[in-house]
């Protein structure tokens, strides 16, 4: 028997041990989906470098760890959330479970619902059937299958028809740092017709934590709905993160995703946006900064299925030391999606000779009246710019930091949520321009 099969059997044992305690154990359709999912995982296992979609990302370090689902009974010092907290409606999740004592959902306007997935499953499982009921069938790879089998908690966000929610909803997912733990999050975000909201997901853990986060978020935008969706990866440099965001866009809806990865030893984020009806619009904005031996893989797919859709995808990465980044950007324009307007760009800035970036734009266009453009560059700091700044008296470290900051500035500038954008600017400037004044640089 191969070692891989041993790994799979381990997960099967986990499942038999834990299934009865997972949310929805008493809900027949959900129990069935979970069982189907673990069976599916037993068939397909983890993706390998032979899978085209995983060609550059070796997940063996994760698979070999055989982490078991977190017990979720770890207590956390409330001060631990302070560095990651935002004002707004905040739900905090720790080690696989909703932590009501740390959360502050605040007053929500009528028509908005914000609750934990476990609570939703317990109280009104039928509400979630459209998402959780079909996922086991749709799971694309072993990690998604495991998520469907083991998902324990997460957030359910429901923005009712025509509601404009001003304050952001913040979902904070923390790992306390228990070694070898794995948590499976599942979030469901729905914006009904004509509504507007901002949702932030933050994944964080203290330095040295070596956990695995497996998180999937389903986003549904009904006609004319608008969502600003931030996803911040701030986990420890020893953590593993496999994430997925699946967005479905109805007519004239607008989805803006801002995906920022600063942490994790290995992080992969799959982002799908399906523009399913006329006039849908999406912005996929991404930034990652890696160092040490970090590996960041952004795997994105945009499907234009209807006419007059527009997509903008801008991803930028800064790579230092021996770190590595992978970007795949697939854009499909179906035959009926005439007048699609799609643009994609992916730029990498390499700060060391050992850093490595792979960029794979894939455009598949089956309609004939479309505008599609893409570009990708990988380069080092501009020596002319460096000399220019130094010739003005800025020392080399300052000049370098400033140029890296400038490289990232346009990605940050696209973030509409000012406090979050400013905090990221501060954080980045602090990391790049240690000790230098930043007044006049930040927005």
């Amino acid at each position: 028997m191969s070692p891989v099969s041993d790994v799979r059997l381990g997960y099967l044992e986990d499942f038999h041990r834990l299934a009865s305690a997972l949310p929805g154990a008493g809900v027949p359709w959900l129990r069935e989906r979970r069982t189907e999912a673990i069976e599916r995982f037993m068939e397909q296992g983890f993706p390998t470098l032979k899978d085209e979609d995983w060609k550059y990302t070796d997940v063996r370090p994760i698979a070999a760890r055989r982490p078991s689902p977190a017990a979720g009974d770890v207590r956390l010092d409330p001060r631990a959330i302070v560095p990651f907290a935002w004002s707004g409606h905040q739900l905090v999740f720790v080690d696989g479970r909703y932590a009501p004592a740390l959360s502050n959902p605040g007053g929500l306007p009528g028509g908005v619902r914000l609750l934990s997935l476990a609570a939703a499953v317990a109280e009104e499982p039928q509400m979630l059937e459209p998402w959780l009921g079909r996922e086991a069938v749709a799971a694309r790879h072993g990690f998604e299958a495991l998520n469907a089998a083991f998902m324990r908690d997460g957030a359910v966000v429901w923005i009712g028809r025509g509601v404009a929610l001003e304050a952001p909803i913040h979902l904070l997912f923390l790992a306390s740092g228990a070694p070898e733990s794995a948590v499976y999050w599942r979030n469901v975000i729905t914006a009904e017709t004509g509504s507007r909201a901002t949702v932030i997901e933050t994944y964080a853990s203290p330095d040295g934590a070596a956990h695995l986060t497996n998180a999937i978020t389903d986003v549904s935008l009904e006609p004319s709905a608008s969502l600003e969706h931030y996803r911040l990866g701030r986990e420890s440099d020893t953590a593993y993160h496999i994430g997925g965001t699946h967005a479905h866009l109805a007519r004239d809806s607008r989805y803006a995703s801002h995906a920022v990865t600063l942490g994790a030893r290995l992080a992969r984020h799959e982002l799908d946006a399906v523009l399913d009806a006329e006039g849908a619009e999406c912005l996929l904005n991404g930034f990652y900064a890696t160092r040490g031996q970090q590996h960041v893989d952004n795997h994105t797919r945009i499907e234009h299925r209807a006419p007059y859709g527009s997509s903008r995808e801008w991803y930028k990465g800064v790579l230092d030391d021996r770190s590595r980044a992978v970007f795949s950007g697939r854009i499909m324009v179906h035959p009926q999606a005439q007048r699609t307007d799609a643009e994609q760009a992916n730029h990498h800035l390499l700060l060391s000779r050992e850093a490595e970036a792979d960029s794979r734009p894939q455009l598949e266009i089956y309609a004939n009246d479309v505008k599609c453009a893409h570009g990708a560059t990988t380069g080092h700091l501009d020596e002319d710019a460096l000399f220019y700044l130094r010739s003005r008296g800025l020392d080399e470290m300052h000049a370098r930091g400033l140029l890296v900051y400038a490289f990232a500035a346009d990605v940050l500038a696209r973030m509409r949520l000012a406090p979050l954008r400013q905090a990221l600017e501060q954080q980045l400037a602090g990391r790049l321009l240690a000790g230098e004044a930043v007044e006049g640089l930040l927005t």
Partner: protein
Amino acid sequence: MLSITNLKVNVERKPILTGIAIEVKPGEVHAIMGPNGSGKSTLAQVLAGREQFEVVEGQVRYLDQDLLALKPEERARRGIFLAFQYPVEIPGVSNIYLLKSALNAVRQARGEPELDAMDFLDIVKDKMKLMEMPEEFLYRAVNEGFSGGEKKRNEILQLALLEPRLAILDETDSGLDIDALKVVANGVNSLRSPERSFIVVTHYQRLLDYITPDRVHVLAGGRIVKSGGRELALELEERGYGWIENREGASA
């Protein structure tokens, strides 16, 4: 102030400067003229500390220091300023940030206190008036989307702000219309003083109609082939570089 002796410089292993000697005294304006490819810009950038250019021989003394041993930022802090021929665009960094960082770096080196935001604004706005630059340029990204003339004005604005001891102008006149040229020349002239020296690198004599040089050097084939007073520039204007180059060729 500045003493260059037997300076030889390679760029990508090709000899570009093959033995330069110039002596600049405090308060003097030296013009360096020459045809394209003669090494004028290389000389300007080597003096400012461009590291990609390899000095293979020679010496440069500046205020009794070995200039070549200093990093570009150290030179800037000791009072050397290069106005670039092609000012670099830096999207994402505001002009005001660069100006303030530069001024405070230089002030710190001079033993002066850092300026706070208000004092800095007062000073920079004053200098912008001199350069006929609207205030909005402060808040735009460094040189991004600036016209050729605006970029050159921005260079002279930095010069006016940093008050260097030795200012090197690398083809600051190229690409300027006559009005912009006058503004730039006016800016430079207002900064002339007995303690401040200028090296003005130019292809054409035009700029020298407005900035009167004390000495004119003609650079060709990587070395100075003729030096003289201001009349040399006029002679070059009339007879072209061919005259010098041919004479040089004949005498070699």
